[in-house]
């Protein structure tokens, strides 16, 4: 069996927050969730999106850290800041293209999702991807995800001029190779979508 990997499928998310609530139950940081759920624009849609650390191959948070406090494990998991090193400057918080690291004033340290390293390093699934009832967060093998899902997993992003590759994959429609964030929309979004696809009043027009 090949290596287990983390996959996010935003189209499956139901916004239930089981991931956020379960994250706060992890033994290494009990009581504090390291991940969050974005409610995109509730007035327009029920779309939500869970945000875990994407674990960049070349983590920007670590690159901008003046104290060299953010380390990546040999298996590619980007850890929270090292307590003796972190100076609480929040460079990482500002620099992360995914908005993941959070500065905790209470402990004067940056904490972030470490893919439940205490669990995943011993073969268990991260807490969020274990409980997620919709399968929006999944921790499984590449073969399994390719066999069971319609979309394809990609881990290549472009933020303006900055290309980023991540350990965490996102599920996208076939033919998408990279998420271009400066275009706001994924490039392969069908142009046939109506202008406001989630307005119930528009659906009732023609009555």
């Amino acid at each position, binding site marked *: 069996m090949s290596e287990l990997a983390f996959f996010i499928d935003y*189209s*499956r*998310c*139901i*916004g*239930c*927050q*089981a991931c*956020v*609530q*379960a994250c*706060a*139950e992890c033994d290494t940081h*009990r*009581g504090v969730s390291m991940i969050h759920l974005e409610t995109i624009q*509730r*007035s*327009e*849609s*029920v*779309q*939500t999106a869970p945000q875990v650390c994407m674990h960049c191959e070349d983590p920007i948070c670590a690159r901008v850290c003046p104290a060299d406090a953010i380390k990546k494990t040999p298996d590619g998991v980007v850890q929270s800041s090292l307590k003796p090193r972190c100076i609480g400057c929040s460079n990482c918080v500002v620099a992360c293209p995914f908005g993941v690291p959070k500065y905790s004033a209470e402990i004067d340290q940056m904490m972030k999702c470490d893919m439940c390293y205490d669990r995943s390093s011993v073969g268990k*699934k991260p*807490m969020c991807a*274990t*409980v*997620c*009832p*919709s*399968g929006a967060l999944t921790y499984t093998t590449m073969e399994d995800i390719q066999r*069971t*899902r*319609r979309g394809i997993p990609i881990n290549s992003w472009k933020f303006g001029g900055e290309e980023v590759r991540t350990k965490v994959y996102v599920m996208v429609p076939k033919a998408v190779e990279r998420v271009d964030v400066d275009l706001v929309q994924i490039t392969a979004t069908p142009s046939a979508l109506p202008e*406001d696809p*989630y*307005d*119930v*009043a528009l*659906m*009732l*027009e*023609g*009555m």
Partner: protein
Amino acid sequence: MAKLPIDIPAIVDQFGPSLHRVPPGGWNQTGQDEKLVKTHCCFCGQQCGIQLRVRENRVVGFEPWEDFPFNKGKLCPKGVKRYMQDEHPDRLKTPLQRVEGKGYEPISWDAALDRVASEIKRIQQAYGKDAFGILTGASLTNEKAYLMGKFARVAVQTANLDYNGRLCMVSAGAASKKVFGIDRSANPWSDIPKAKAILVAGANVGECAPITTDYLWQARDNGAKLIVMDPRMTPIARNADLFIPVRSGGDIGVFHGMMRIMIQQGWIDRDYIEKYTAGFDEYARVVDRYTPEYAAKIAGVPADLIVKAAEIWGPAPTSFLLHARGIEHHSKGVENCIAAIQLVLATGRLGREGCGYAMITGQGNGQGAREQGQKCDQLPGNRDISNPEHRKYIAGVWGVPEESIPGKGLSAVPLLEAINDGKIKGLLLICFNPTVSLPDANFVRKALEKLEFFVNIDFFLSETGRYADIVLPGSLMEEDEGTTTNVEGRVIHHRKAVSPPVDAREDWKIICDIASRLENADKFRYSSPHDIFEELRVASKGGISDYYGMTWEKIDAENGVFWPCPELGHPGTPRLYEDKKFNHPDGKAHFHPVDWRPSAEMPDEEYPIILTTGRVVSHFLSGTQTRRIGALLDQYSQPLCEMHPKLAEKLGIAEGDFVKVESRRGHVVVRAQIVKTIRPDTVFVPYHWPLDRSANNMTIRAIDPISNIPEYKICAVRVMKTDTPTDRISQLGMEAGGVR
């Protein structure tokens, strides 16, 4: 007395709801768990497997249970935080008695039980046996549900016993019985991902049955088309292949409109209908009137959506229907469900892999608790209390004369009405919070005050428990042992993790303690819930829901057993109707010519807007448990009134404004949430909150004539902008009915 002994803020101060946020020992406690107990979530009918972490007789956390086949470790936020109800500061730990002007004072168990028994006797001697009513719940285990039915008929000997499944599963159950003769989802959930067309009618799956979401998405990833019917674009509707924003109460328009097209296109199985069913022609004659135009008018949606639904459902090789409260909470709830499941029957896509239907039970033991004889018209094994053969069999099991078993009693809403009319003078209530969960809450509160004696068994003092003369501290799910039957009809085992705290007692012991002071005391000498299960097995033998072939050991070994399981060697029955035999005397399934009719209260000039009510993902039912868990309340703190921007503009209401939502029966003041994801003629208010925030202040006390389910999903209201409330109730915490 049954009146509040002191004012509400003073009660809240002492008994909550208050918020519990930190596990016992604090977030950072170290040390080893003593036990990891494999059991099930206490909340909804999905009954997810979960492991509870236990130290020093305290539940300190949870661990996913990935080997349990139904949810494979998945949980919703309620499941994740459920353990926070353990060690809760609001927990009732000793019997209490009402003291006018002072509140509730502790008394001994013997004094409390003696008082309960003597009040039951006094009321029954003065007003007759049926003047004492019993209301129970569908979150009770099978063992407790069975015990409550026997307790009412054998110890108290009252006909007036009913349960809060009356607010939940009865329309679905009655419809399935009428069409197929059996009240159970026809398939295990593992059939859902194998279907190529899925119709979800009136089920906010993402919020009310979150674990089912993955089954739906698996089906879609396997190429299924998903149709969702709901007045609101729910989380699963957002990505459905076809979303039909049906007007609440207009569902039959969609179902019959689809069927008319299917008949015309030949998308029904004539051979199956001919061989295995009866009544199709009469049904087809009714359906024939539902032209796309007429169907669209009834459903309140454009006709092309109904045509598209027929085009997806009709020719599909395999299909699965899921329905829930959205079509069931109506004064025509049974007819709605019949119309829905006849879409399944007419295609013959039933009783095989990837083909069938399910009703999504809402409450923890929504399935099992409706089979063991705690309904007003029912005996164990889903037997009929009016059937002489059924009565004779159960009388034999109980060792009582058949004629001593009372007849059919009143269902929940009429039972409350009988209290209001002075016909029922005493009430025992367990696992039910009717001042929050029954419709027309102002009426419910007024009726309760007329009771001469009211005893409540619960683990927290609910908003209804505040009216009690005696409160008996019962047990949480994890403080006792027993079985429940999940949404699929799979009987599963809840294991005991900890003992009830201090002087609280297991519910079944409390009932047996009361019974020991009443008639037939010798019929209630159980030493454990396992004893009760062994009797339940025998009582269910030969009934529709036959558990006779089950043992707790078998349930454990096989991760649950599906009923019917009539013999010890029987493997259980995950999928019904594989033999195309139905449980009617003629062996056939029966079509019924149901027709659309208006809801009890349609919008008019004075009250021009439709109110529909429902749930949010972080709360469960009347909120007695979830409004006490900080993390869940934080997620959705107070009820909001969802409305479309078009309606908001017409009413001059902006996001976050306080609005008064008012019906002919009552009102709430809540904040507005303006969203494009709801029909412009409809507003939505979730019902988990009490008092001035209770959506049921507005709902109508109209019930389905067959199932007696209340019409929670539609009543007429008006909505207006209002000032920020400043009264004392509004200043309470949001968990207690306050508003911010």
